[in-house]
Every structure is written in C-alpha cells, then in structure tokens.
C-alpha cells in the first residue's frame, strides 16, 4: 500500500507560507505555515471562530489570502503558486485532483439529480463519455461507500443524512484526487452514523493514499483519522504536532483546556 521509500523521500504536496486573512479589522487567520505530504492526514482543530474554516478556504483557493501564499505540486511534479494558476489548471484541481467534502452534503451534491449522475458528473467533467462505463464506475463507487446500488437512480434528496454524506464522498473520490479537503464531515450526523462514516473514511484514505486536510472541532475524529494536528485559536496555530502527542501531552493552556473538556462517554 504505502510505499515506504516514496513516503520518506517525497516532496510536499502542498506548502502554506505565512498565510493571513483579514476581514476588515478582524484577523481571521494569522501567519500560518506548514507542509503537507502525500498520504498525510492533517486535522485542524479549535473552537468555533478560531479560524479553521477560513484557513481551509484559503488553502483550497476559495478565498484570496491577504498575505502569504499556497503552493501545490501538480501531477507533473512542479510546485505552483495557487494564485498564479491559469483557468485550465484551476479547473483540473477542482474537478479532478482535489476533493471537497462539505459538512452539509447539499452543498457538495446536486440534490435533484440521481445519485449515479452525481458521481458520473465528475467523470464527464474530465472527458469520460461512455455511458455504460460511467454508470459502471458510479455503481462501483456506491458499493464502496456502502450505498445499495438499487438506489442509483434515486436523487439524494430521498437519502438519509448519512447516505448523503457517503454519496458526497463517492462523488469526490471517483476522479482519484490526491488531496481532499473536509469541513466537519461528521458534523450533524448521529453517533452510530458517524462511527460508520469515520471507519469508511479511514479505510478509503489508507487504501487510496490520500492526503487530507480536515477541519473538525471533535478531537475524537482528529484522533481517529489524522496523523498530525494543528490547534487554532484566534486565527493562529498555537500548537502543532503528531496527533497522539498533542492530544496525550498537550502543552499550551488552550490545548490542555480542549483536551480536558471532552466528556467521557
């Protein structure tokens, strides 16, 4: 699965340098720098308003930074500044090489068209035109995310919350992206549905050697899915490191507060 040598010698996939964003007088994100390697899962944790989602939007090019920059290594191996990408390259990232899993599946899916079309659409956007093959691939992906293929022609608005979220994941992964952004992917789901989704995400991420940047306020989700974690407060990264180190041996007062605030089940 994971190629050891490749993992160690590889170049970073994404590098953020001194990223900042202000909304008027409010600094939502201040001076954030880090590198993400292929196959690495990075969790961004912190409470509401800490700047997590702003950072995710900066990293995925949905929001222009006030300062700093993000570079991404394209499939040709060359690292490029996101701000300087042409329209074709940008489209390639959004439609193929990146995925974006929203907290609300309605934001990432087209609710009125069939599940099969939701998955197939990403393939058609990259030039697939053989209907049979598109449907077959879509059906494979529904199976992988544990959706009964008998529901392939139903629209996601007839799906439960957990199914919608799994469909959104299938839609994102069908083009074999190298990087997936996730914004609270388990938020709003009840716990048993959450556990199933987490388990599914965890195995898909490992199987596909995906790099993931996941925003969550749930430390249990961070522990289960991520290799590394960054703790944000007031727009700054106040502590970062190996996930189990930060959660088991937190150093900063705020991180200690977060870790000690978890209610035991």
């Amino acid at each position, binding site marked *: 699965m*994971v190629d050891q040598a490749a993992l160690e010698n590889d170049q970073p996939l994404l590098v953020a340098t001194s990223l900042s964003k202000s909304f008027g007088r409010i600094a939502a994100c201040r001076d954030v720098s880090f590198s993400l390697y292929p196959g690495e899962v990075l969790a961004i944790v912190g409470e509401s308003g800490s700047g997590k989602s702003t950072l995710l939007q900066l990293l995925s090019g949905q929001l222009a930074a006030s300062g700093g920059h993000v570079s991404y290594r394209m499939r040709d191996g060359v690292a490029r500044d996101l701000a300087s990408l042409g329209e074709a390259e940008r489209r390639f990232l959004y439609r193929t090489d990146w995925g974006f899993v929203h907290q609300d599946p309605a934001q990432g899916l087209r609710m009125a068209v069939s599940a099969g079309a939701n998955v197939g659409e990403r393939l058609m956007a990259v030039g697939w035109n053989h209907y049979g093959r598109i449907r077959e691939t879509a059906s494979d992906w529904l199976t992988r995310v544990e959706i009964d293929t008998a529901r392939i022609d139903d629209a996601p608005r007839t799906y439960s919350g957990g199914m919608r979220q799994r469909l959104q994941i299938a839609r994102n992964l069908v083009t074999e992206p190298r990087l997936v952004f996730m914004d609270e992917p388990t938020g709003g789901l009840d716990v048993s549905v959450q556990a199933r989704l987490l*388990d599914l995400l965890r195995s898909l991420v490992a199987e596909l050697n995906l790099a993931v940047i996941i925003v969550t306020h749930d430390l249990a989700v961070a522990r289960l899915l991520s*290799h590394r974690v960054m703790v944000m407060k007031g727009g700054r990264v106040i502590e970062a490191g*190996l996930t*189990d180190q930060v959660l088991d041996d937190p150093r900063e007062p705020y991180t200690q507060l977060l870790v000690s605030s978890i209610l035991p089940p």
Partner: protein
Amino acid sequence: MTAMIDVTDANKTFTMHLQGGIELPVVSGVTFQVNASECVVLSGPSGAGKSSILKMVFGNYRCDSGRIGIRHRGAVIDLASAEPRQILNVRRSTIGYVSQFLRAVPRVATIDVVAEPLIVNGMPRTDAQQRAGNLLRRLNIPERLWQLPPATFSGGEQQRVNIARGFISDLPILLLDEPTASLDAANRAVVVELVAEKKRQGVAMVAIVHDDEIRHLIADRIVDVTSFAAAA
C-alpha cells in the same frame, strides 16, 4: 554492537496550565540502552514514571531535553527531535507498542484489528488474517468472536486482542505496558512464550510488569526507575 534503543539524559515535566501552571516533574536524567534479543523491565513504584518513559520512547510524550536514539532501518534517529512523519515511519516499521488498553475503532472486526499492522506494511489481507487468526487462537479468543468488533469484549479479552495486535508484526522493537495485567494464568503463560519467541527473533523489548513471577520469567535486565525520579 549498536543498541536498538539508546536513551540519554531525557527529561520530562508536565506544566498544568489549568491548575494555575503548577510544574509536575516526571523524570529526569533518564539513561539506559536496550540491545537486540533483550528484554529490559522498568521497575519502581506506581507514579515513578515507568509508563511516561515508555511513552517517551514511543514518541507519544515529548521530551523537554535529552535524546531518544532509536535504530531505524540501519541508522539512528532521535525521536526527541524527529518530525511527526519520521516518528510515524519509525512506528510503522520499527517500534510496536502494546498499551494496557485497547483503543478500538468502532465497527472493525477483531480479526482486522489484529491484522491491520501487517496490512499497513503491505501484506495481502488474507495472509495477514491467517496470522491474526493463529495468534488469536493461541491467546484463547474463540473463533466465533473474530468477526465482531472488540468494543463489547471483557477487559481480559480486549487486552488479549491488544496483545495479538502488538505481537503480530515483525518489528525489531516492542514496548510492553503491563501486558499481563488482567490475564489469567494460562494466558499469562502464552504472553511469556510470545516474549521468548520475540527474543529469539532478535527483538529488543522494554516492559513494565507488576507481577514478580512474570518479571522474573521475561526480564534479562532490570532498570530501576526511582533513580530517574525528578527532583520536585
């Protein structure tokens, strides 16, 4: 011969910010080596810092100062100053850790919990599951439980699943935190056997065991942790 584990002058203090910033010194001046084919047992009363030392060696607790030298694929890497992804690599191919408690992933079958470390290192699923089954059988986990997630198992069963998961890999270093704590005599004997097999395979081990009889059976050397007690 180079030691597999070479800890030099490692220090650890907890600063409890939520309790008015009190400093809780844990250990200081921790220094010891472990060679291949050797099991070193850390001894000392509860609270002396044995588990903390084990966690420092695994890279789970950070050191304030000092060095945790680990022989990893022919070179020595200092875990006290390593990057997160280096530590993950060391854990994937060099150091295994058997904790007292199983941190089970919801919904994953016992057999896959045990087989996972092999699959992560590239072994085909069916081979890995076969080895997992052999180990579970030795540890007296009945086959009808293998397809169930271990979350609902008894404490002793969970610990045996955890032991199977820890012993299944062919990693050159193993850390054991009270592996026999809630086991009956028959299963304790299996663990003693497993440790002996690992020694024959050249594995370097550090263990914490409270049971005097087990300690006597597995220890090649004892390191007294009270000498690393941090001056409070």
